[in-house]
């Protein structure tokens, strides 16, 4: 009875004309989701139809996830659906970001099977990998999984095993106001004042220069002054990722293998090399183009500054772009995406000199995003993988991608179709094309940067954030601050064990050096 009720309330109409699709799925029965329409239930092991055939009555699935809405809301939604389809009891626990790590780690370390399914940031893989059940081969063969792009397969992989279940794709890229860059009046004005053509920045030097030019005057013509750049700068609020985005251009030399954050063979930190120092100097310089309060911007502030039309450019996760493209946004379809700026000067740690590149070096930063996994200690592993498989089936993913606050971003080949964004969300052609081209272009790169996916990653990153914050606040010079970070990284490596960190870091270096 329960399942029949579900099928009725979820407005699934049998698609008699298209036998490949059993029904159209929508979320109307679960909340205010009517505007997102429906998506076809693609047949396969993860489809609504296939999951409906499973019977988990009397079993309980325990899920830990982030607070609502980002990833927490889709977890809730799909848990209710899964419960209705299979008869299982699905208990979802929502945890704020700051507490999520310890709420995962303590049960792992004390060998309690507290949760069957976990949603968490993918960069913690080095800490949690011993506690995760590898994704079974059968689930790696489902059509949706085969469409996951190489970058996100890599993010989910440890050594040669897929141990995280991909449910989201994240990366940092540049977002900018295309209407302003295309404005002839501003182009002339920029040329007159700087002697340069106004173009989408290809280097961080250009980024800072353009950002400074567009700071403190009313180029948005709304009666208020606007600013050049909104960046995530608040210490302990993901600022380290913003810095890595900037530093990649100066430090990820395509001709140098064997480690980006550390020299793999010696485990010598590279975080204070001239490339990173230069990146920090540029980060500090960019403060001149920040909105008031911009040196204390968390991710939420960055999203609303760019998405609300206060800033010309921004770079980080998808959220600010999606915010700008919301139906009520004053800058809807006035934005575009581009790869992160690069640098023509790239530090070569092998030669201890700067290499010059004619085409700016612009490594994509495949930054961490939301991922999921099944606990090795779970007694319901089949049900847990079925849940994740269902969570990320084609119909759910297609709908989840449209709901910006869900935090689910493109990670499958099928998501990189401009027509999807135009038809489903009403984006104009240029916005959709630059978005899709930028995102899919990162999958073509042979010079990728990944997070420091090693045990104790949070210790490394909070130390880094503290050093950057000190330099940004003028408490220390960039070199002093990063020397301090390097010294602390050495201590952390010594404490954890150089071999242990090296063994884990080798997985990251393998991804970066292997290219594609």
């Amino acid at each position, binding site marked *: 009875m329960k399942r029949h009720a579900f099928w009725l309330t979820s407005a699934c109409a049998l698609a008699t004309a298209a036998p490949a699709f059993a029904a159209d799925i929508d979320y109307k029965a679960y909340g205010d989701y009517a505007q997102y329409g429906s998506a076809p239930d693609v047949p396969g092991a993860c489809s609504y139809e296939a999951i409906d055939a499973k019977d988990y009555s009397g079993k309980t699935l325990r899920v830990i996830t982030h607070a609502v809405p980002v990833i927490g809301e889709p977890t809730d939604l799909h848990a209710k659906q899964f419960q209705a389809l299979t008869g299982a009891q699905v208990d979802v626990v929502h945890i704020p970001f700051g507490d999520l790590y310890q709420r995962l780690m303590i049960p792992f370390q004390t060998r309690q099977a507290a949760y069957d399914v976990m949603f968490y940031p993918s960069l913690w893989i080095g800490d949690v990998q011993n506690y995760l059940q590898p994704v079974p081969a059968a689930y790696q063969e489902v059509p949706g999984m085969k469409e996951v792009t190489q970058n996100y397969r890599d993010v989910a992989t440890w050594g040669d095993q897929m141990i995280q279940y991909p449910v989201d794709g994240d990366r940092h890229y540049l977002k900018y106001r295309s209407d302003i860059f295309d404005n002839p009046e501003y182009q002339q004005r920029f040329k007159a004042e700087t002697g340069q053509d106004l173009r989408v920045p290809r280097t961080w030097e250009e980024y800072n220069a353009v950002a400074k030019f567009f700071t403190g005057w009313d180029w948005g013509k709304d009666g208020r002054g606007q600013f050049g750049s909104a960046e995530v700068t608040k210490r302990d609020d993901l600022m380290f990722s913003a810095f890595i985005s900037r530093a990649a251009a100066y430090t990820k030399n395509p001709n140098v293998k064997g480690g980006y954050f550390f020299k793999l063979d010696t485990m010598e930190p590279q975080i204070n090399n001239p490339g990173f120092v230069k990146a920090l100097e540029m980060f500090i310089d960019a403060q001149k183009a920040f909105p008031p*309060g911009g040196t204390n911007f968390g991710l939420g502030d960055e999203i609303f500054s760019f998405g609300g039309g206060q800033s010309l450019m921004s770079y980080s996760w998808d959220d600010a772009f999606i915010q700008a493209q919301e139906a009520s946004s004053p800058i809807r379809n006035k934005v575009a995406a581009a790869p992160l700026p690069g640098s023509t000067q790239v530090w070569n740690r092998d030669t201890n000199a700067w290499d010059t590149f004619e085409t700016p070096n612009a490594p994509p930063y495949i930054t961490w995003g939301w991922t999921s996994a099944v606990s090795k200690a779970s007694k319901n592993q089949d049900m847990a993988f079925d849940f994740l498989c269902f969570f990320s089936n084609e119909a759910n993913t297609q709908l989840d991608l449209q709901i910006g606050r869900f935090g689910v971003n493109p990670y499958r080949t099928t998501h990189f179709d401009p027509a999807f964004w135009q038809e489903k969300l009403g984006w104009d052609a240029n916005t959709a094309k630059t978005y899709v081209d930028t995102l899919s272009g990162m999958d073509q790169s042979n010079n990728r940067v990944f997070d420091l996916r090693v045990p104790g990653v949070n210790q490394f990153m909070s130390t880094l954030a503290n050093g950057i914050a000190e330099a940004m606040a003028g408490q220390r010079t960039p070199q002093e601050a990063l020397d301090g970070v390097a010294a602390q990284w050495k201590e952390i490596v010594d404490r*954890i064990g150089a071999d242990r960190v090296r063994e884990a870091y080798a997985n990251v270096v393998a991804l970066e050096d292997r290219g594609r």
Partner: protein
Amino acid sequence: MQQREFRLYKLAFLLPGLLILLAIILFPLLFTIRVSLSGWDAIVPGLDWAGVRNYAGVFADARFWQSLGRLSLMAVGTVLIQYVLGFALALLVWRDIRFRRLWRVLFLIPMMTTPVIMSVIWRTIFHESLGPANDLLGFIGLGPYPWLTSAGWAVASVMLVEIWQWTPFMFLLLLAGLISLPREPFLAAAIDGAGPIRTFFNVTFPLLAPVSIGAIIIRLIEASKLMETVYVLTSGGPGTATETTGYYIYIRGLRDFQIGYAAALSITYLVIMIVLLTIVAKLLVRVFVGGKTA
């Protein structure tokens, strides 16, 4: 009943309460001490034996000591201002003024709000682009001010929120003290022709000294745990300008998951606080009572 039997009888009644007290107070403390002697972190699960390694680390941890210095400044500063303001407000509504009950309730409202929620609201108020603080000051030709992005202003902002939230607590205790004061000394002062200022310094203030000492000590204990406001408003920034000890321990323990080290930081901090607050209490007695009682 024999004396010995009576004592056993009393002990039997007291024992359950004592055991609960031990469980509630002592066990967490003893467990924290044990954790502080372990290397429990993201890599080493559970309670191994690290000896005093964590404590050696604490003594060499400049960031911890700097945060302690910062905390002391902020705690003493906010509590002194709270005391002055709380005393003034208490004196105001102690007298017969119109709407006295309303004022008493109004003055208590900030204390009744949830600190984290209010910190979020204050963060919005201080937001330099969107918040009303700069807009309102702009109407009278002041600002804009870098509330959260300049070291000095950020410290002042954190202190302002603390003062706003906890002055009512000081007000409440001092008002209760004022209401309970005997009337005779005031009548005697009036008969002797003392004016309001002399009455305050020679009668009210000395009579209220025990309450003042208690209120200041309680607030100092609370203020020394300053964390939520920093967490929400500044994350300890800009740089490390507003990083308090509580926030630093939070970062080390729950963000970095250095549980053993964070426990050592906590125990060290507890010992320092006990010593400092004991000294402060003695000093306060000397200042308020002039060493007549101790």
